[in-house]
């Protein structure tokens, strides 16, 4: 029993070692994607209040090695940036309906 248990642990370590660099790269790509969407929302004049701070926190968590936290924060920021861009697209025409006539 004991050897199997030990090899399980060894296996876990091997997987973690293999996975870690992949994840770090993955985080880099996810960050870049979310940052790009945030910038698009800002260029449209529709960036939300928290998005930049969420990405900043995500970077800090990633540096500390808290990859799960980092991914959750990036995901939140990405959803915000996407929603802001949808808002910008909708408002390109929708504002007209509110003009006092």
């Amino acid at each position, binding site marked *: 029993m004991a050897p199997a248990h030990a090899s399980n642990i060894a296996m876990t370590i091997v997987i973690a070692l293999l996975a870690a660099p992949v994840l770090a790269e993955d985080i880099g790509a996810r960050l870049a994607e979310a940052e790009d969407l945030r910038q698009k929302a*800002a260029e449209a*004049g*529709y*960036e*939300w*209040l*928290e*998005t*930049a701070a969420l990405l900043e926190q995500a970077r800090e968590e990633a540096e500390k090695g808290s990859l799960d936290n980092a991914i959750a924060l990036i995901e939140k920021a990405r959803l*915000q940036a996407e*929603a802001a861009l949808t*808002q910008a697209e909708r*408002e390109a025409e*929708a*504002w*007209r309906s*509110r*003009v*006092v*006539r």
Partner: protein
Amino acid sequence: MAAFLAALSLPCTAFAGPEEDRLAFVSFFQSRFPDILFDEFANGIYAIDADSRAQWLEIEEFPPYEFAIEHGQSLWQKPFSNGSAYADCFKQPLAEVRAAYPAFDAGRAEVVTLEVAINDCRVANDETPFAYDASELIDLTAYLGYTARGKKIDVQIPADEPGALAAYEYGKRFYYSKRGQLNFACADCHVTSVGMRVRADRLSASLGHPTHFPVYRSKLGGMISLQQRFFGCVRDVRARPFELQSTEYRNLEFFLAYMSNGLTINGPGARK
């Protein structure tokens, strides 16, 4: 009936210019508050909220912005190091400086506000420009607002100046666009929900907002500019605020000041 209304509204939607917009804006608030005289809208929320009005009138007996006016006056009168003074940049009589802004500057092809014009004057005289939240700058505008009391807001959109109309349209669009995580337009609060209660506040009409700035806010214990209010309201809907005196806020100010044309300048003001 529906067809009749549609026919009526068609030409408006297609060709509404600034003056049609303004008349519609004014009549919206006048029909929402039939007992309030046009000029009263210059008093913001105190035009429509009788409860807080009494408190405000008491505050106005010992105006908390008095120091800002005095400080602004001494800054205005102090010559620059080169011997010139603000009065050399602003050629109009003192009481007419405030009402000359915001204005569309054709040469620069952009809206110039009073704050920008003051900084331009400083730069032209080799002085460093103020930060747009600097108390010196706000106090200068308090003094200019005070000397302009009784004058009318009179924003011009010259017909031969397409840039001025474009800046106005930009500001109008900004005003009516929903933004931020809370998905609110300025108009959602200051037109549609005017008079309604939001937490401790009642919502004032946008008609008259530009007349009384800068404003002493007791909550903050200091003076703030109109654009600092824009900044705060944009942040409150959880959108990322724009820089003070950004193109966005200057065009917004241009639109809103035009909507308040004909109202009497009564700055500086006092607010909660």
